[in-house]
């Protein structure tokens, strides 16, 4: 595709449910980042993949959050036992290499936990 694609655009879920958020990076981009943006705030780093492996997952807030990228392309962010505080826009970015100076962002998935 022409850009980074994230699905769904919007997700409303009940507290305690499990959700999966998908990111399709730009074709050929080896680096992939997940960020979380709360209302009125800047993005907050969650995890960085180089290829299939998570090179840095230090931003994941707790063990309810997990992300995978099994074939080095599409990535899925998984949130277990969702809480109202998880409500935010989840942004994905990809770049041709590790330098975040070349990263392109998707439009984000707006997650609302009710």
């Amino acid at each position: 595709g022409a850009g980074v694609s994230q699905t769904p655009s919007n997700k409303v879920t009940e507290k305690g449910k499990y959700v999966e958020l998908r990111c399709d990076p730009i074709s050929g981009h080896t680096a992939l980042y997940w960020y979380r943006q709360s209302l009125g705030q800047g993005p907050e780093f969650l995890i960085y993949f180089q290829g299939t492996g998570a090179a840095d997952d230090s931003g994941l807030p707790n063990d309810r959050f997990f992300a995978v990228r099994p074939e080095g392309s599409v990535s899925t962010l998984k949130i277990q036992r969702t809480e109202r505080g998880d409500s935010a826009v989840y942004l994905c970015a990809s770049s041709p290499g590790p330098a975040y100076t070349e990263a392109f962002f998707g439009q984000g998935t707006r997650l609302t936990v009710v």
Partner: protein
Amino acid sequence: QKEVEQDPGPLSVPEGAIVSLNCTYSNSAFQYFMWYRQYSRKGPELLMYTYSSGNKEDGRFTAQVDKSSKYISLFIRDSQPSDSATYLCASGMDSNYQLIWGAGTKLIIKP
């Protein structure tokens, strides 16, 4: 104290004015200083970045970094209504891939 501080605004200026957007940071290890533009319900879009100190110009946009005062600026000349958006500064180090972001300044250009 947040590592990158930015006034949330809103900042409202008339069309054609010069806009000055600013951030301060606290971590002296930061080497990358980025400016992003974010329209409502869209992802951030990189405008420009500076490595270490100095100025960088791209069309109507100029980025400045003063490492002695830990101050980052973005200037927009001949501002247009289409420049109305939230502007986010972000900083990073050579040693890892985490960008630390300001909260963003909402800019409104009045026709």
